[in-house]
């Protein structure tokens, strides 16, 4: 099948959505320039015009809130934040308004917005340009949060997110932009809330998110070489995450490791671990381990970055730990 990179897949989804639905528009900082978005929005402004692809002032709060207002008024905006760190200025409209809107009006209002933000870390950028903050939003009812790890999902989840009538946080990872994979030319949806089994296995369930789901591929191969048969689940949606699939897998393996490249305390990994312990306790044969970032901001110096960020090796170690 046709191969696209992760960034190209995102760009294609945007283009097809802009083409198929006149209600779709894109706004945010950096959408006219590859500096921020890499190839993921390349020349969309030239193709669809700068009315529908709008590079905005440095006003995260109002840009996001205006997108919310446009969504309530019937549009299908995609608000872009080149870095998730900057989106903290827009937490108020996202949590107080977008997340609550449907409920507090008894379902009479809905906010079909996609708030797209990028995890863009490493490269000695430091603490304020590295944060993976999805764990703040998975706590909040009314929001959906998706984190594709493959080009296929990057396209399919963006399409599903834009077509969903709820506020969806679409989080892509700059470290995945050059990965390639099969991507159909036509539009298709990857259902929100459904995880994917990347590898069947019987010894341990490994549930991973986003970049760690990609890193996990290598880890499970290494483990296979060591005779460990891992079932790898890519969560894809972290709110609401796929209880059925995770439960049935853990029901089978009795062991669970969760890999999420966010801070260790709290967050998605903790919620998955807590939920499984609460509801599947008697199926568990071993402690549930989380492979996450240390509870510290990101440093800059390359030697510290190498110590800070996690990868396949950390996954392998955790899986071996739950087996012995």
């Amino acid at each position, binding site marked *: 099948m046709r191969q696209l990179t992760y960034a190209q897949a995102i760009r294609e989804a945007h283009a097809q959505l802009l083409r198929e639905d006149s209600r779709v528009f894109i706004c945010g900082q950096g959408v006219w320039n590859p500096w921020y978005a890499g190839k993921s929005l390349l020349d969309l402004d030239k193709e669809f015009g700068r009315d529908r692809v709008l590079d*905005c002032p440095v*006003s995260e*709060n109002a840009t996001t809130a205006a997108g919310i207002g446009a969504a*309530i008024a019937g549009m299908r905006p995609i608000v872009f934040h080149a870095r998730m760190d900057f989106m903290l200025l827009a937490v108020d409209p996202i949590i107080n308004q977008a997340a609550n809107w449907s409920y507090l009006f008894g*379902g009479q209002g809905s906010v079909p917005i996609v708030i797209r933000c990028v995890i863009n870390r490493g490269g000695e950028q430091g603490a304020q340009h590295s944060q993976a903050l999805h764990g703040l939003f998975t706590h909040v009812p009314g929001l959906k949060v998706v984190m594709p790890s493959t080009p296929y999902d990057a396209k399919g989840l963006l399409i599903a997110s834009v077509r969903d009538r709820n506020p969806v946080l679409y989080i892509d990872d700059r470290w995945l932009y050059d990965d390639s994979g099969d991507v159909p030319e036509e539009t298709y949806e990857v259902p929100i809330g459904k995880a994917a089994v990347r590898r069947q296995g019987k010894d341990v369930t490994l549930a991973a998110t986003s970049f760690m789901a990609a890193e996990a591929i290598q880890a499970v191969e290494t483990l296979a070489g060591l005779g460990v048969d891992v079932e790898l689940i890519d969560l894809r949606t972290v709110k609401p995450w796929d209880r059925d699939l995770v439960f049935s897998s853990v029901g089978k393996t009795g062991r669970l490791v969760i890999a999420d490249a966010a801070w260790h305390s709290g967050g998605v990994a903790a919620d998955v671990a807590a939920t499984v312990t609460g509801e599947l306790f008697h199926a568990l044969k071993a402690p549930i381990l989380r492979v996450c970032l240390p509870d510290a901001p990101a440093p800059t110096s390359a030697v510290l970055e190498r110590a800070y960020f996690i990868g396949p090796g950390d996954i392998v170690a955790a899986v071996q730990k739950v087996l012995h």
Partner: protein
Amino acid sequence: MYDDRTWAMELLTGLYRTMLLIRLTEERIAALIEAKEIKTPCHLCIGQEAIAAGVCAALDGQDSIWGGHRSHGHYLAKGGDLNGLLAEILGKTTGCSTGRGGSMHLIDTAVGVMGTVPLVGATIPLAAGAAWASKLRGDGRVAVAFFGDGATEEGHFHESLNLASLYRLPVLFVCENNFYSTHMPLAERRPKDNIVQSADLHGMPGVRVDGNDVMEVYESARAAVKRARDGQGPTLLECRTYRWRGHVGPAWDLDVGEQRRRELEEWLPKDPLPRLRRRIVEAGGRLDEFDTMEQEVRADIEAAVRFARDSPTPDPSELLQHVYGPRG
């Protein structure tokens, strides 16, 4: 100063009726609060009715309004369902927000009341966004954000004005400057009494209006709406007015002391209703018509109170409905 051709008697009496409906509804709500029949916090707009009435009279049904914590008047002026308001405040399923929103979260999309929410200033960018939608669709609709003087201290007030002006969005920013944010007078919150000046900074017209003169409000709003529909972008209206009751609830709020007492003495005579009433009489309106009107409005309000009282409370089994909308 007024363009007299516009002052057909129906318009005048229509404006009066709207203000009267708001005034009497708020007073009825005040009584229900004192009777402990209402629990949800209510921020009454008594004294400020002319702004809601004047602005909404300049709008079409298709146009949208967005409000805040003190928005009973905005909801009613735009034609929001009276039964739905009372039922919502009494926490009933028949409420405009099905009993999930209370006084501070009102909606009636059928008449363009898109939502009122109590995070101060929150709907300023939302209204700009609705205007953005209209500009992209070319549907000719105008959006109005109602907010107070306090809301202009939130940074996103400025961010929103800049966006709306930059993109020439068809939106009216209607600031009801009642000189207070809860207990804090304007002078303790900003160096100058110059909210209207924000417009010039952000490259749009700003008009300072006597917010207790409904005709002046109407004319200014009409001009701003025309500008917006003609694609010339947003306008900021600073409507100067005064809140009679407490920040929240029915109390006359003399607790905040001498200053408030003096100010009230100065503002009560500026009551927008008698002012318009005089004008109508000058224009040949008959006094007995006011009595008929008042009886009709009171009857509607009592009917709404009965409707609300007779309506069922929400079923707890539905607690988790609508956390997510359709398709999700």
